[in-house]
């Protein structure tokens, strides 16, 4: 089992969701984050003083999948999120040792789906 974590542009969330649903990935956990990467940020001015805002709004998606789903999931995210502009984001993949469904107590790859 793998955990796929994607950081994407907030406005791409609906597209990524749609792409994931198409790829039959229905489970995910989403949260708001702010981040900086190659995007340069922008300036805010407030009452005459300038703030360099380099942490931009992003959305983080976590998806736990069985091995066979890793590639399709990543592809779906890329399909949904890519615009070709700086700021499109990153996908991280890490290993998952165990997954438990709280409701039933099932574990492992049955629990994930």
């Amino acid at each position: 089992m793998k955990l796929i974590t994607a950081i994407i542009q907030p406005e791409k969330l609906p597209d990524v969701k749609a792409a994931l649903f198409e790829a039959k990935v229905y489970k995910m956990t989403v949260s708001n984050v702010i981040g900086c990467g190659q995007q340069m940020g922008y300036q805010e001015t407030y009452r005459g003083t300038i703030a360099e805002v380099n942490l931009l709004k992003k959305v983080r998606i976590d998806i736990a999948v069985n091995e066979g789903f890793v590639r399709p999931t990543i592809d779906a995210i890329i399909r949904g999120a890519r615009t070709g502009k700086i700021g499109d984001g990153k996908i991280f993949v890490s290993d998952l040792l165990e997954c438990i469904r709280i409701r039933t107590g099932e574990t492992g790859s049955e629990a994930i789906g």
Partner: protein
Amino acid sequence: MSRNGTEKKWSMRIGIFAALLVLAVGSIARGAEEAAGASEMSVAHSPPLPSNVMFTIHNTWMMVAAFLVFIMHLGFATVESGLNRAKNAVNILFKNTMIPAIGLLTYAVVGFNLMYPGEGNWLLGKILGFSGFGIRTDAVGLTPAYNPGYTYWTDFLFQGMFAATAATIVSGAVCERIKLKSFLVFSTLYVAIVYPWVGSWKWGGGWLDAKGFHDFAGSTLVHSVGGWAALVGAILVGPRLGKYTNGGVRPIMGHNIPMVVIGVFLLWLGWFGFNGGSVLSADPGIVSYVLVTTSLAASAGAVGAMLTSWWLQRKPDLTMVLNGILAGLVGITAGADVVSVPASVVIGLLAGILVVISVLVMDRFRVDDPVGAVSVHLVCGVWGTLAVGIWGEGKSFWTQLVGVLACGFACVIAAWVLFRAVRALIGLRVSPEEELAGLDIGEHGMEAYPDFQGFLTK
């Protein structure tokens, strides 16, 4: 991120704007200086003569009415920003704050004298009049000889507060995507020229007045004048990104519903002055009657919208109820003084039903009006004006229709020309990137709620 050419040009344009402003100020100045001796002397001496008693009462009432109309601008500001997304709140509030300021200043420079040219100053039939730049008066302006109900200054204040309303209505229909500069230029011109010009046809004693057209407090002259421009603006500027996807309508939710409620209550409160003050005196019978029809229409609008929305949407939508209240108020505005109590309830109820249906229909036609400005102000403004022809004693439906169409015609043309001119010169719409990130960052470089973690899309 460096100052590029376009921005330099903008600085220049701002400079020109400033210059025009200075000119304008100058023109008020000139006029007023002439009159200053007279008016100030009279101010200092105006004795509380017995004959002034009724005048003082009426004038006090009219000043209070002006305050109430003033606070409507806060109502508009909170309704509009609440019904849109957090990322555009600063921009919307900015516009709604500048509008009354610009409105009052332009009204002082040209608007008042375009709208109330006075008998001798019609330039073109009874279609266009103008009595010169600036506001000024002599001692007579402070006495009942000017008007039994108010002084010259109260007159200016009350009418000036009304003036900016038209631009505010437009703001609600084009928000979340129109450029700040474009909107400011459009609304300055619309409020300085178009609103008072059309208004003069009836309230300034022009041709519509002569025809017997009845529009008590402005279902047509204020609300649909704003509403037509809102419709034109919404069409020309196009729908917000992501609102209409292939085949579907995606709701874009208002970010702060409590603020919308605050706004609607303030607007209802303000309407007591809007309608109550339009009696132009504190006459106990008429004013209190108008307040009752106004309140009952608002209440019936709420009930009508609640039932319709409950029926059509399965669950009652608060924003529809709030629109329903405004619909009832807009609807009764034309005839608050001439329809019966039950008619006022029916007018409000139907306005509340109409507004819900209209909001749904607008989305069918893919006209994206984030706050329902067209449905509230145009549809119910027209409805209210025609309703006078149905229930108003001795009023003609056809005259009412003529008034509606004439004003609509003039406003659509004027708004179209102005918007197209602005589009040609400056462009109407922000870039898609700016729209996605929000106009608060794009136009103002600041956020409305920086301490809170929020979603841009869900």
